[in-house]
């Protein structure tokens, strides 16, 4: 989960409940509080699913609408954020099944070339972006655990809650997803090690 999301979960749990109560009492404008508190996390979560800004906002908007319609069904057994993220994940999953974000199979994604000494940061950024996009090319059952695990700041339990799956299943799928990515990018670890060494050397020299 992003820092924004975490802050919202920890510090503003009661405002969500208060907003929900007001909305259920007929005050539609009270939903704005929920939108303002959760727009960041939801747009970022949608972005991880599709890596398209415009589509991420559309998806997040749809998730908020579904939340509005389904507020009465929130049973308050879990926190509002847990319910909202699970609902949003369902919306994003359904939409991406309809229109996939990436149609390239993971086997066709080329491992980035080794970085040149110049434009190091830029190249590193673009290489990281290739790895992130490769996640989208994973089969959905492996892709979603990866997306949600890192969205929730590497909290397996939170990712499992969002997907409505047991923690063990999520761990197993994460492990398989990593294996697939490792096979796809076999040289990335060596390059990272080399970069770290060169960075530390430069730091010492400075």
């Amino acid at each position, binding site marked *: 989960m*992003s*820092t*924004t999301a975490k802050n919202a979960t920890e510090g503003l749990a009661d405002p969500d409940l208060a907003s929900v109560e007001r909305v259920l009492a007929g005050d*539609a*404008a009270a*939903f*704005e509080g929920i*939108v*303002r508190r959760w*727009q*960041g996390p939801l*747009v*970022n979560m949608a*972005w*991880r699913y599709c890596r398209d*800004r415009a589509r*991420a*906002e559309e998806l*997040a*908007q749809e998730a*908020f*609408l579904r939340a*509005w*319609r389904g507020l009465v069904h929130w049973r308050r057994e879990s926190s509002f954020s847990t319910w909202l993220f699970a609902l949003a994940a369902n919306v994003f999953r359904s939409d991406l099944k309809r229109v996939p974000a990436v149609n390239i199979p993971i086997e066709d994604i080329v491992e980035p070339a080794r970085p040149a000494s110049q434009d190091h940061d830029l190249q590193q950024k673009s290489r*990281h972006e290739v*790895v*992130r996009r490769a*996640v989208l090319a994973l089969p959905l059952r492996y892709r979603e655990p*990866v997306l949600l695990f*890192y969205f929730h*700041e*590497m909290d397996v339990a939170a990712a499992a809650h969002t997907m409505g799956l047991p923690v063990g299943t999520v761990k197993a799928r994460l492990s398989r997803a*990593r294996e697939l*990515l*490792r096979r796809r*990018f*076999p040289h*990335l*670890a060596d390059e*990272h090690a080399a970069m770290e060494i060169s960075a530390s050397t430069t730091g010492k020299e400075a």
Partner: protein
Amino acid sequence: MKDEVLDRILATEEQLLPSSGFAASVMDRIREEAAAVPPIPFPWRRAIPGIVLAAGVFGWGAVELTREAVSVMRSAQSVPLHLSASMLRPVEGIGWVAIALGVSLASWALSRFMTGDSRLL
């Protein structure tokens, strides 16, 4: 690629800020939905007498059909080689009743479909 490297790459995602009009746009949609007239509920109170009457007619029809079928079967056992015209008449009647029931059911289902209600009742 080691897991730590992958963790570092995937965990260091830049945070996307929603566009300035995002919340307003969501609230516009919410207000539209809130202002929309709720769907008219099915008038159960008015429909219940009709449903009871229809159920009665169906029940009576079923009883009559069964009775006719039993009498035809009994007659058929006693006269195995041919059926007289008077015995065939109830059998033809059964066919017409079945068709009428089918047409009624189809028209009921069609009207439910046209009103956008896919539930059975």
